[in-house]
């Protein structure tokens, strides 16, 4: 039997009400710290460095009091892709990745070339994936989309002087994020309605693409109609409230940074600089 409860397994982007320190931080500070730690995760390639990063991320997760299992549930749908990616990296990228300790061939057959480099690449990139997933979860679980986009707008506002559309970008982002759960629910409703009249999803064999594409039509068409209708409603609602763009607009909630927020940013910068410049022995 099909399971129609999509929101249960899509955890990324979901806000979870709570009251650990993560909820009390200024979203701008959170965003900056997120940016620096993600930079550290992305550019650290040694084993030791990645172990330290993983430990850091796990400690942060523990502080947040959000169950780790719930964060990792978001990985499930992406798992097949991660595995395929890891296998391809292992088999084909042996020559391209040079670890700090030099590259050694472990296995060679035709165009397949496994080296210490490709092994490290696979391990490091899998770890990276987990780190990033937990970091993104920490940010989105503890920050509402409104806080996130206002934080982004506020951080980008200095650029507005040079004609950068900070407000418009933040509006587009808010709208897009806000509509994800709405459209997911709508998708669920439509799938249920079509299943009620006998529609079959996901059958007909993996390789029968045309048949599979045809099965999607009864869902896709109503979903598009709904999305367009909602967009029109939104335009109408904005016009009715005399929306003219960002100029001269104020916000309901004004962000105020405290010492705690500054310390968070400073710590994350120092941490990132350390991780990126220190030469790890292995």
């Amino acid at each position, binding site marked *: *039997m099909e399971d129609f409860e999509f929101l249960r397994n899509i955890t990324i982007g*979901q806000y979870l009400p709570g009251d650990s320190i993560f909820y009390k931080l200024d979203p701008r500070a959170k965003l900056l710290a997120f940016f620096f730690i993600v930079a550290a995760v992305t550019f650290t390639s040694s084993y030791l460095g990645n172990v330290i990063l993983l430990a850091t991320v796990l400690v942060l997760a523990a502080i947040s009091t959000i169950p780790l299992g719930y964060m990792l549930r978001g990985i499930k749908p992406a798992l097949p892709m991660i595995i395929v990616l890891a296998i391809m990296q292992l088999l084909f990228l042996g020559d391209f990745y040079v670890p700090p300790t030099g590259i050694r061939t472990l296995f060679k057959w035709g165009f397949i070339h496994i080296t210490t480099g490709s092994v490290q690449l696979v391990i490091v990139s899998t770890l990276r994936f987990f780190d990033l997933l937990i970091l993104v979860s920490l940010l989105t679980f503890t920050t509402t989309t409104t806080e996130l986009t206002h934080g982004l707008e506020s951080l980008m506002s200095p650029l507005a002087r040079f004609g950068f559309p900070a407000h418009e970008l933040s509006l587009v982002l808010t709208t897009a994020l806000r509509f994800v759960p709405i459209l997911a629910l709508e998708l669920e*409703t439509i799938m249920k309605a079509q299943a009620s009249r006998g529609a079959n999803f996901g059958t007909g064999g993996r390789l029968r693409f045309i048949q599979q594409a045809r099965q999607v039509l009864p869902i896709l068409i109503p979903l598009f109609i709904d999305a367009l209708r909602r967009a029109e409603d939104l335009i109408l609602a904005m016009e009715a409230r005399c929306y003219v763009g960002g100029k001269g607009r104020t916000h309901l909630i004004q962000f105020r940074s405290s010492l705690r927020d500054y310390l968070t940013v400073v710590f994350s910068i120092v941490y990132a600089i350390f991780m990126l410049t220190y030469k790890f022995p292995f």
Partner: protein
Amino acid sequence: MSNSQPIVKVENLWHIYLRDTPLEVVALRGVDMEVYKGEAVGIIGHTGAGKSTLVQHLNGLLRPHKGKVIIDGVDLSQEGVDIRAIRQKVGLVSQYPERQLFKDYVADDIAFGPQQFGLPPEEVRERVKWAMEMVGLDFERFKDRYTFSLSGGEMRRAAIAGVLALRPKILILDESTSGLDPRGRSDLLRRIKELHEKEGLTIIFVSPNMEDMAELVDRIYILADGQVVMSGTPREIFSQPEELYRLGLGIPQVTEVMHALRARGKNVRVDVLTVVEAEAEVCKLLNC
């Protein structure tokens, strides 16, 4: 009727949304319900009482997390149940069903269901014709109309015809009359009543509208916070207005008038459900 097997039997049904996550919500906590063949049963409840969750179990859109759902002798909580056969037997019309329309032409859209079950073209055509007539869309006039050019009420009827074309034994209407104008609603209600009386269809009717309930159903279940808190005939249910008010629900307006008259010491029946009955009572009072 009561000595035969119920066609729908729900036993101690539990359902939890977002189960095993920090956001889980218990939607049903031990619901028991029985519907007999040829009956029209109403489900009333406040928003979030679990009405939609309950009816979505009846055609296998949701699995029971605990308890049993037995449709015509088949236990849906068992593995390996032919769920499409159940969906053919139990037609579910959702709220705003017109959102399910996707084909260019009305008849094509209504034919989608029967075609999914691989019926021969003549049979499909016959069913589409029957279903359209049942909801009051003239087959010749509407079959080649462009689906998205229909009015709201017509789209609603076309969508209901799309479910009826499966020839279900049980028809579930989950607030399917909401959002229609008064005439469209009473017309649809009349058609459902006709289906129930002439075709012997078993009806499960979910609606917040007490007048519609009083008009259509034989028995009512009242849900509150995922549990059945009251059940009985409309007359039994609506003769206890205090209970219903406490649950944030109401009673039909004419029944309310009778209760008010009784409260002022007038000797009238309070189990009145329709305007015609109320008229008779008031006439008796005024000696007209």
